[in-house]
């Protein structure tokens, strides 16, 4: 493995975007205020200086148009990378995602591919309130032909972008906004992370903690606490939530017999429901306790710092749930 450096997830994403722009003239970036302003989260800051406004395209406030216009360009050979300023606004573009991007190639044939990468800062934890804190991976899971990635660290955030480019399909990149500033080791030369492969971040035979995005660090912390109680957690970072790495999940559960999914989407109909169902179908015989789910509460995400944290899984709630399963 090549040497690494510590950089933030923002910097890693910026580097991956720059790399793709340099290596492939078909790539362009498109979104609101991504040029001089660098986007609401400053991910694209400075990129326009190198590539100019023809490839770093600032748009009107038109999420639906952005996605579908990009799909049209993709249809002719472009490889657009879209930024939707907050994932909440993606709801405005669901027709383009569901009825166009996820369907054109499947319907009309392989000559009609519309490969898109759609990046979106997502999730809670910043007190932005009900319309600026959602994460739609749980909802989008039910759309056939869609790929959904949820990186938890700088190397994966960059690597999944390269992997998404290679996959040449419609990929939703869910970037948790609380992770942008997090530092992590990244190889000198960025390496693609293949779509659909999770990673085991810690081995343990007592309980599986299956997480993605910002809940991966939380799961690792919970694992430390549990280890002090002699409970060894197997921590899985899904990295891609669609397609799920079912074999890694099975591998983990067949060892532990107990597990928890930890997600940013609401629990009902979310990613954990799918994981639980997959565990049911593939690891039933190994289960020693019912597989459990943690995720966002069934409500709006409030702005108040006093109210918001209770809406999401935490190191504490993971530990509590794990103890419950261990003593089941």
């Amino acid at each position: 493995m090549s040497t690494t450096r510590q950089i933030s997830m923002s910097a890693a994403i910026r580097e991956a975007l720059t790399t793709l722009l340099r290596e492939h003239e078909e790539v362009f970036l498109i979104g609101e205020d991504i040029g001089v302003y660098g986007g609401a989260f400053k991910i694209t800051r400075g990129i326009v200086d190198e590539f100019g406004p023809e490839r770093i395209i600032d748009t009107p406030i038109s999420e639906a148009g952005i996605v579908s216009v990009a799909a049209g360009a993709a249809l002719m050979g472009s490889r657009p990378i879209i930024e939707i300023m907050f994932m909440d606004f993606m709801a405005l573009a669901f027709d383009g995602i569901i009825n166009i991007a996820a369907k054109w190639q499947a319907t009309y044939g392989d000559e009609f591919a519309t490969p898109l990468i759609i990046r979106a800062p997502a999730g809670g934890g910043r007190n932005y309130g009900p319309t600026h804190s959602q994460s739609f991976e749980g909802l989008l899971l039910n759309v056939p032909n869609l790929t959904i990635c949820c990186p938890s660290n700088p190397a994966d955030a960059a690597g999944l972008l390269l992997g998404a480019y290679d996959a040449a399909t419609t990929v939703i990149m869910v970037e948790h906004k609380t992770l942008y500033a997090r530092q992590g080791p990244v190889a000198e030369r960025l390496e693609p992370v293949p779509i659909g492969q999770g990673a085991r971040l810690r081995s343990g035979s007592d309980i599986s903690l299956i997480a993605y995005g910002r809940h991966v660090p939380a799961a690792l912390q919970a694992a430390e606490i549990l280890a002090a109680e002699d409970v060894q957690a197997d921590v899985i970072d899904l990295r891609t939530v669609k397609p799920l790495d079912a074999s890694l999940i099975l591998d983990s559960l067949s060892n532990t017999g107990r597990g928890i999914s930890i997600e940013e989407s609401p629990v009902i109909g979310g990613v954990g429901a799918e994981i639980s169902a997959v565990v049911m179908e593939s690891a039933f015989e190994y289960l020693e306790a019912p597989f459990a789910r943690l995720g966002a509460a069934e409500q709006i995400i409030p702005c108040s710092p006093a109210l918001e944290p209770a809406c999401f899984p935490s190191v504490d709630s993971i530990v509590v749930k794990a103890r419950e399963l261990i003593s089941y």
Partner: protein
Amino acid sequence: MTDDQLLTAYRTMCRIRAFELRLNELFLQGLVPGTTHLCIGQEACAVGVNMALTTDDMVFSNHRGHGHLLGRGGDPARMLAEIFGHPNGYSGGRGGSQHMAVKDLNFMGTHGITAGTIPLAVGAALNRKIHRQPGVAVVFFGEGAIGEGIFHESLNMAAIWKLPVLFVCENNQYAMSTSHGDISPVANAAERAAAYAMNSRMVDGNDVVATYATTAEARSGVAAGEGPVFIELQTYRISGHSRGDECPYRSREEEAQWAERDPIARLRKRLEDAGQWTAAADTALETQLAVELAEAEEIARES
């Protein structure tokens, strides 16, 4: 249009009409799955526009797209196969009438979501502009599609970026049962272009010559980088919206008035008046088209 072009236009319009009429029969016999939307009465739009385009141009269609595809050179056998849901159909039978595309023809797709292809055309044009490639994007849509927000977002982007797009609005007076007057505060669809400082044209879409001429003229400006143009083709859907539509929302008088402006009858009269066409030629063409179509149907059925 040259004399030859006029004859070609006439033949293609008749081919479209024959295709649609036959499809209607098959429908009534229960031989067509799903649903389909016929363009009877709008043949001059499909043909006039298509004839003014080049092979580099990228054509986007909508739910009422058989004429657009036939006008672009689509193979009736593969279209029928698609409509029947057979493997040899343009989309392998997956798409049916509302979802066919043909890469070789730069025909980028009929589509079932109203207004859904408008932004795709804008994106295709954006691609051309970035890579400085030839060809303009052309998108057919009905006046009903103007109600969708994506219409607005698309025209806005095309206008600010001066993209090579021809927005071709076939105003056939109705969106399903809804008359244009009931859903539009402006009398003519073309007036929408003002909000985008976009050039627009209003043409008799039942006159293939005018449609062709306007499209050709507009296309050359668009191709030269002068920005998008909005063309309103005023026409009429002679057929019902889709299967089993008895058109309770419009009057028989109105239908009769428009029947007098039937684009095929008008062109035939013009050709006959100019001595370019005869009743005998018409009978021969009719027979030829029937044979062609029967063959296509045969191929489609077995595919």
